[in-house]
């Protein structure tokens, strides 16, 4: 218990004393409550990334988007204008702030070398170059221009690509161009499983 008898007496004495001396004046009769924490945040309309109800959410970020203010998310709440969720959110949507600000988010590219038991940090440039080299080598090695029946198939069975279903349509379209360019036949997504 974080209270000593002395502070209790002091608080009681002062408080009661004040009340008795003044009765209740207007000042004493009001209480400071916790300030409304999002009164000057920047609101951004977005869509919850979890299920396919697609609830509208408002992301409240710190600051007014001025050049010198780095936005960070202080609160996420349902968008009351959204016709489907009308401001409501499930427990997952209600805690989106903690997904965005999650301390466990990955923030640097890593590589695990063959046989190794640990991650190594790697620069973005080195990671992209390393991945591109793998893709090229695999494609060059595995590319099937014609199948056993002699039909032109232009496919690269050495590579597979699978995607989740929480990225945008635009990303998905770019991804389709990507796999088309590389001739990847093995491709699938969360939509199947």
């Amino acid at each position, binding site marked *: *218990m974080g209270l000593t008898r002395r502070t209790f007496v002091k608080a009681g004495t002062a408080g009661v004393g004040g009340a008795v001396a003044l009765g*209740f004046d207007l000042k004493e009769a009001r*209480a*400071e409550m916790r300030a409304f*924490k999002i009164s000057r945040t920047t609101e951004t309309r977005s869509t919850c990334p979890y299920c396919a109800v697609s609830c509208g959410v408002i992301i409240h970020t710190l600051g007014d988007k001025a050049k010198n203010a780095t936005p960070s998310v202080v609160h996420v709440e*349902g968008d009351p204008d959204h016709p489907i969720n009308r401001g409501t959110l499930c427990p997952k949507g*209600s805690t989106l702030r903690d997904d965005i600000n999650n301390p466990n988010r990955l923030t640097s590219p890593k590589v695990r070398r063959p046989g190794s038991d640990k991650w190594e940090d790697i620069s973005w440039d080195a990671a992209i170059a390393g991945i591109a080299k793998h893709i090229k080598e695999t494609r060059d090695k595995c590319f099937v221009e014609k199948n056993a029946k002699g039909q032109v198939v232009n496919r690269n069975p050495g590579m597979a690509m699978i995607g989740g279903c929480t990225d945008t349509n635009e990303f998905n379209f770019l991804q389709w161009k990507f796999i088309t360019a590389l001739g990847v036949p093995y491709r699938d997504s969360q939509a199947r499983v």
Partner: protein
Amino acid sequence: MSVHSLEIRRSSASLLGGATGMRALPDVAKYVDTSTCIGCKACEVACQEWNDLAPVATHQVGTYQTLPTLDAGFWNLIRFDEREVDGGLKWLMRKDQCMHCAEPGCLEACPAPGAIVQYANGIVDVNPDNCIGCGYCETGCPFDVPRFSAKTGKMAKCTLCVDRVSVGLEPACIKACPTGCLHFGTKEDMVALGSARVAQLKANGFPQAALYDPQGVGGTGVVTVLGFGDHPEWYGLAANPHVPLGVKLWKNILRPIGLIAIFGALIGTVGHYFTYGKKEYREEA
């Protein structure tokens, strides 16, 4: 004076009610319809998020319920209850939180002036500036709501999002509720909404449906629709809640003595010590 401040109707350990009568504010209330609650816990975390409460430690003990009871860091808890009624299974869920009683036992039990206040709109709040963390409010509460926080040394409970309500917004839990089993508005409107829902339930297979708004505490700032209104205990609610006798004694006998300030404080201190002895607090989860 803050622009967000509200007039106070009552204040703990204080001489008189505080409202000047200058403004007429309607009482506000939450509406909880247990018959359309799916126990999704959006209200639980919406409360934590709005109030910036850190996650509490929990353990899987074989239930969907997050914690056995409320916690200083968890002011809103869905209680789950499986029950066979007339051969059919019912999975009852109720949002548990501070009931914001019209006659709050916590406020009556509190010895610290201004630590528990009832605003002019009926919201009962702990003012941490004045709270001394003695825990007597817990004794006074017929719903077992206030909790002592070892982190702050103060009591903590649902504020009915008074910071939101005072600027014209509904509480965080109410806003989040996906099924609309929660509503917020004036007490009058919420009672009307509840009565209409009770009537609908009665006509649709729940003849015992009732609105829980117990008069033993002067009515509550949370009106609850119960499908089985004859069994509030199935939902973890007392059938006839009232402020404990000991607290009434404090209020009616000991508190008037507080008219004499110094004596009041001293007697209060000593009196409490002998009445209740040292308070043991449950560990924060």
